[in-house]
């Protein structure tokens, strides 16, 4: 295993999963860096769309929030949020929606609202933002998050954004235009979803991570692909782009 951090591996694995994608609805932080890395490597034609109302962003610096002015300067379009959510997202133009999660269950259902009860929560989280409608309307959803037994849970405390509900057939029966979660990338590995059951399946572990490590950081009896892969190390170029261009101060990727 080379000299790179868990977050760098997470970003690189997230970027690689975007190969060939066109329009990506992206949040700030690690997903933003992953998409920016993809744009410079495996998906040069990818267009970034931010829920703040920007399409086709070409930020000249690392944006520190999804409303950063650097996202507007040089973008293809800056628009109202009515337009963004109505015509672009609900209108079906978004290929991939990137979401994060405080809690995720085996069917890819997401909680970003509360830990504990709603009325007097143990931890009040930010809430949905655009995540609920992204989860329903983007053609597919990628989840990027750090993994632990506290975040990968048997039962989420609140369903903010629907994944495969209780199974793939249940999701498909809804008739939503988005097919839901397709890839989950964590600091430990990469997951796909079983097309029949809608359940997450571990497809790759990152270098230096064992299947036992992943199981210890998962709150349910995890399904593992028969041909479990090991993610190739980040390349020198991927690391250079992250360290020198995308997050030179290590704001997000350090640690």
């Amino acid at each position, binding site marked *: 295993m080379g000299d790179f951090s868990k977050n760098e591996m997470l970003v690189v694995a997230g970027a690689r999963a975007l190969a060939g994608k066109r329009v990506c609805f992206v949040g700030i932080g690690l997903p933003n860096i992953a998409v920016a890395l993809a744009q410079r490597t495996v998906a040069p034609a990818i267009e970034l769309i931010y829920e703040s109302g920007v399409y086709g962003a070409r930020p000249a610096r690392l944006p520190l929030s999804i409303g950063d002015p650097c996202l507007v300067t040089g973008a293809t379009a800056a628009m109202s949020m009515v337009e963004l959510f109505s015509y672009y997202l609900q209108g079906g133009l978004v290929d991939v929606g990137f979401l994060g999660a405080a809690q995720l269950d085996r069917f890819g259902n997401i909680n970003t*609202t509360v830990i504990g009860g709603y009325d007097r929560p143990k931890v009040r989280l*930010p809430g*949905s933002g655009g995540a609920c409608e992204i989860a329903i309307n983007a053609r597919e959803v990628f989840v990027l998050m750090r993994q632990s037994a506290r975040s990968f849970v048997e039962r989420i405390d609140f369903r903010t954004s629907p994944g495969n509900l209780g199974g793939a057939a249940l999701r498909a029966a809804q008739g939503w235009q988005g097919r839901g979660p397709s890839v989950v990338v964590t600091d430990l590995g990469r997951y796909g979803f079983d097309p029949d059951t809608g359940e997450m399946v571990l497809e790759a572990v990152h270098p230096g991570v064992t299947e036992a490590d992943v199981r210890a950081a998962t709150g349910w009896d995890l399904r593992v692909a028969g041909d479990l892969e090991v993610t190739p190390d980040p390349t020198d170029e991927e690391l250079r782009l992250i360290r020198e261009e995308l997050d030179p101060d290590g704001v997000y990727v350090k640690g």
Partner: protein
Amino acid sequence: MVRDGDTLAIEGFTHLISFAAGHEVIRQRRRDLTLCRLTPDVVYDQMVGAGVASKLVFSWMGNPGVGSLHAIRRRVEHHDPAPLELEEYSHFGMVGHYAAGAANLPFWPLRSYFETDLPKVNPNIRPVTSPFGGEPVFAVPPLNPDVAVVHAQRADAAGDTQIWGLTGCQKEAAFAASRVIVVVEELVAEEVVRADPNRTLIPGIKVDAVVVCPRGAHPSYAQGYYDRDNRFYLEWDRISRDPEALEGWLDEWVHGTATHEEYVEKLGTERWAELTPAPALSGSVDYGDYR
């Protein structure tokens, strides 16, 4: 123009957030306000910490790019010093909440909320079926704030208001509100507005007051005028974790300054120099002269 008990929207998606108006509300020691915004961030944390609000209507709460809003979290998690009522949507739901208010519609339909817990905690999010074929969607009711405050790059004396950059939900909030206050970086001649009508967000007929307050969006930003002061957003994380530090900050920077002008001066010229971007002009377009 803001009274105790009012529903107040200080909109702005990261961009053009009128901190100056929020601070003035704190100085006036208003009470029992319902604060609306898609993204309650630092100015709402300051207002909640100062005790002006009893309810939030929102869709995402956080310090963007930094973390949590600790004054709000103390009220929600520990009821410290008192509970804070929440009415929670998703972004598109909140957008529709304003848009229905602005368009005088009984509801706004959207393809969201299916199979989620949000409608369980907010009875204002309700399933409806399309009268054209019975398809299920969700609906949110209109939101009509008593007062909307919009920060903008420029307006003329009649209140015709223009902005560029992120336009968020300011237009919907303003058209939905009973009273509209526009706070601007610059007051310009009517001809400036008339030379570029596509950039007008709100016409003067919807505007009740224009306040000229350069840099009134700090630490948020005005595209082309000054950058977002990310250092302040990071500092707020530390200040807001400690109620005494928060109190001290309000005493020094809000109650301790009589006007936003004093606040701007207190920040110092060096800070402002750091926040000033180089120009990136849009070029110009030809509207044509059709005499």
